[in-house]
């Protein structure tokens, strides 16, 4: 895994439907400055900048990393852009971490963003070539058949998706950065919301958000210096991995993709995790449609195949459960697409740093257990994950 790497600074913008007060550059700048302040640093201290965002058609800026160089203090430094569809926030963090793990840099700034209000993601995801027909509308149209297949395969009761939708929105009420705040959210409200892509209801889907997130990843030396300057504690990377697989391959399990299982297995092996439910104190997992919680509970080994929904139903993944999933409110509450994966990684880090504020999971703050950050993208074909902990590995 290379040299130790730590999260020494985290910065998030508030996630909102529209941030018309700032440009794209102003938006990423806001997150970057907050991450630098958290680490006790300035742009001058940064060795390298890694930027991630989702497909270019989302805002119509083809080379955002070039346009954003001024805003991110990248003059004279290496700067690159990462793109792995919806998982890009996670893979951006991992590319940045790899620059530290390789011993190449001491302090790397990783930034991910989306300004969905500048366009329409459903449109951008629904283009098709002149030789094919438009059969799917947006991400929901793509994922709904797989959710239906999961429900059929597992025999899960129909209300499990609604339980996740309620749980994550209640969690969001404790997160000052969250976009959707629905006081009084309950099963009835979710059930009554419009069926968009049967079986996905309106309130079982993620919002469209503007927002950015940034992290400073540092070496042992950088972590010690930041801790001395700020009194804060770092989150250490205990395991990190990416996997991908073709979207359409005969025999591929699109409900429980092998790439996700392999990615988790790699991270767990590095981090010494054999019982994820017991060894993680919290997990921030990319759940853009509510049913993806039980699906990923199985894919990530927190539950046996077919039994993920039982964990959700038992309340184990709730804020006061034994393995809280998405205490921040998750993608269901804030979804600046390109940033959503890195928000999961950053929130996992904040949990083991004891910096999660009102949505701090008590069991994560004492530093004895790990937290999981997860992102997926494309047709459930790109996966990025890390396990972070308070102790240096």
């Amino acid at each position, binding site marked *: 895994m290379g040299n130790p790497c730590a999260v020494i600074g985290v910065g998030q913008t508030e996630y909102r439907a529209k941030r018309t007060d700032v440009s794209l550059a102003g938006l990423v700048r806001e997150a970057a400055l907050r991450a630098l302040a958290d680490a006790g640093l300035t742009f001058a201290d940064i060795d390298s900048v890694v930027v991630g965002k989702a497909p270019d058609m989302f*805002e*119509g800026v083809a080379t955002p990393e070039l346009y954003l160089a001024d805003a991110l203090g990248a003059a004279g430094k290496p700067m690159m852009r990462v793109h792995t569809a919806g998982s890009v926030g996670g893979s951006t963090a991992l590319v940045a971490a790899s620059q530290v793990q390789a011993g190449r840099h001491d302090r790397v700034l990783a930034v991910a963003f989306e300004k969905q209000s*500048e366009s329409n993601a459903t449109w951008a995801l629904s283009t098709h070539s002149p*030789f094919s*027909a438009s*059969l799917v509308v947006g991400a929901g*149209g793509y994922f709904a058949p797989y959710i239906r297949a999961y429900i059929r395969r597992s025999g899960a009761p129909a209300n499990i998706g609604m339980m996740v939708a309620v749980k994550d929105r209640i969690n969001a009420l404790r997160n000052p950065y969250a976009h959707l705040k629905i006081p009084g959210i309950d099963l009835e409200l979710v059930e009554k919301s419009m069926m968009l892509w*049967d079986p996905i209801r309106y309130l079982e889907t993620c919002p469209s958000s503007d927002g950015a997130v940034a992290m400073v990843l540092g070496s042992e030396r950088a972590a010690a210096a930041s801790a001395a300057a700020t009194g804060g504690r770092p989150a250490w990377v205990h395991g990190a991995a990416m996997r991908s697989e073709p979207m359409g391959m*005969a025999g591929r399990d699109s409900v429980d993709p092998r790439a996700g299982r392999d990615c988790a297995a790699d991270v767990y092996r590095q981090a010494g995790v054999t019982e994820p439910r017991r060894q993680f104190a919290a997990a921030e997992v990319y759940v853009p449609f509510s049913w993806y919680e039980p699906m990923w509970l199985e894919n990530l080994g927190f539950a046996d195949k077919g039994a993920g929904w039982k964990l959700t139903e038992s309340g184990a993944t709730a804020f006061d459960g034994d393995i809280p999933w998405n205490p921040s409110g998750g993608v269901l509450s804030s979804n600046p697409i390109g940033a959503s994966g890195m928000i999961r990684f950053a929130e996992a880090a904040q949990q083991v740093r004891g910096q999660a504020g009102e949505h701090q999971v008590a069991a994560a703050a004492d530093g004895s257990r790990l937290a999981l950050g997860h992102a997926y993208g494309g047709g459930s074909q790109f996966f990025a994950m890390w396990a972070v902990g308070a102790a240096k590995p």
Partner: protein
Amino acid sequence: MTQTSPSITQTSPAMTQTSDDRALHVLEFPGGYTRSTGPVIGRFLTGLRAGRLLGVRTPDGKVLVPPTEYDPRTAAALGAADDDWTEVGPAGTVTTWTWVADPRPDHRLDRPFAWALIRPDGADTALLHAVDAGSKAAMTTGMRVHPTWRAERTGSIKDIACFVPGEGPGEVPALENESELEPVSLVTIPSRLEYRLRPGNIWNHFIDGMARGQIRGTRCTTCGKVYVPPRGACPADGLPATEWVDLPDTGVLTTFAVNNVPAAGAPEVPFISGYVLLDGADIAMLALVSDVPWQDVRMGMRVKGVWVPEAERTRSVKNLRWFAPTGEPDVPFERFEEYV
């Protein structure tokens, strides 16, 4: 599963390429992207609307036109205070240029012109704009130019129609109600990408089949898997497809979505999109399902293709309109679960 055996045609996959099988592919967000400018770019655009060229000062005294939000050298935020702004030009000096002998339809000038970098007087940087010099011979590096302003100004770099030779300053037509307008904070950026795509040999053979009402797939000679739509190479083995398979237009609906979200180009809602595992195929294909109330659609339903009448068929996948139930008994989930 009980399936009819697919008939195999041992033709070579190298198909004849039709003379011009390119098709227009346009990516254009309807209405254009709505870009928030932020305060700095907004102030520059508001200046253009008023017929003024504004520059922003960096901490080391350089004047940047167009302004940047952050100092490219130090990353310091720029333009926060009124004193950080200065009016420049409007006349300036051409620092370099290139001649456009054949203007394109979307160029602002319909006659030959120069793209030039122009450093306005008082600025330390140059901005890109068109110079209407009449002829290439009239263009020189170092020549003096000034802007001509459009009467209808909206807060855009296009508020300057172009630059023309000479000191100017030229007239700035008054803008009606200008004092009542809000500062520019949001601009609409049209964007259109136009491609001419070729389907490629494999897809060409596929849509040739579709024109005859025949669905064609490819079989991997290593793993034996039958792909439909066909693939140039097997996604699992990476080997080129060498064997074509004619498939029936019957199969089983493995899973589906009921779409209630309307979209341009998509069928009227509610519409069913689902995965149909054709008899003899090893992967389900995405397709529409119709001729059945949406409430009655089931996983495991046996379906058959509904085709556009023969006389109306084109070289397109759209010849296969959708799949409709056959009325046969449903296939048990266990028999097709591995194809979901």
